[in-house]
């Protein structure tokens, strides 16, 4: 079963993402902080990370977690989909070469529907469209 790690500081939204993804048959672990994400990755790894870029109260926020993922060889290969409430800023900022180096496969602009999310997740994981 494919395993998705959701890193999102809004607990209600995190719960929603977990419900949507589990209903599609994914194994989901959700955390509210990049520090907890690193612990979880050390324990069990992931096939995909859904990452909230801005987490103001986190010990390690989304941007910080990107840096930590790069520092460890075993984590560098995990694809990352960024969830962002910054509108088009992330798309404007992310050059293709940079995205490739950071393994950022997709930017999902908030707010998004369950169908938007699942479409992107399936595409990243190479699964047929639902």
């Amino acid at each position, binding site marked *: 079963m494919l395993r998705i790690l959701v890193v999102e500081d809004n607990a209600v939204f995190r719960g929603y993402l977990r419900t949507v993804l589990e209903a599609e048959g994914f194994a989901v672990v959700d955390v509210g902080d990049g520090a907890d994400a690193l612990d979880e990755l050390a324990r069990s790894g992931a096939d995909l990370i859904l990452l909230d870029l*801005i987490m*103001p*109260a986190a010990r390690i*926020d989304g*941007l910080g977690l*990107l*840096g930590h993922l*790069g*520092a460890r*060889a075993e984590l*560098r290969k995990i694809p990352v989909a960024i969830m962002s*409430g*910054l*509108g*088009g*800023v*992330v798309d*404007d*900022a*992310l*050059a293709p*070469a*940079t995205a490739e*180096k*950071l393994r950022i496969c997709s930017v999902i602009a908030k707010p998004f529907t369950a169908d938007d999310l699942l479409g992107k997740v399936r595409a990243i994981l190479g699964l047929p469209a639902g």
Partner: protein
Amino acid sequence: MKTHRPDVLVLDIRMPVKDGLQVLRELRAEGDATRVVLLTASLDDDETLEAMRLGARGMLLKDMSPRLLIQCVRKVHAGDMWLERASAARTLQTLLRREAGTREIESLLTPREMEVLRKVLQGLRNKELAEVLHVSEGTVKTHLHSIYEKLRVDSRAALIVYCRDKGII
């Protein structure tokens, strides 16, 4: 904040004793999610980035018209953002490029070599590096030689140029 519980907080970045970003850091550390608009005399990239990371929903230049301030507050209150898109994108691009450059180099060097590189980029000479890392100068030179070979540079100056080109400094 605790007394009035505003819907939107308009905060000057520059204030004596405690600046706006420090106030915002403390609010966020307490779990306060009040929507914040920061007022600033100029858009500094580092401040823009920190404001974004702290979840500020708007940044306004102080010399903008009062009408724009009203529009900004209304937009932020409605749940939208008021960030100068090009400036925010440029700031974020710098950071993401730095992370990508760091990751590229980390894939080529050992953790110890990365540690040496970081200290070199902080300006430490070989003798200082040896002291900080608790090794001999000979060991430092060995690490540097390995770094130069792996990154295909031939000097400290070339190494710094390489790191600058990768966006790390």
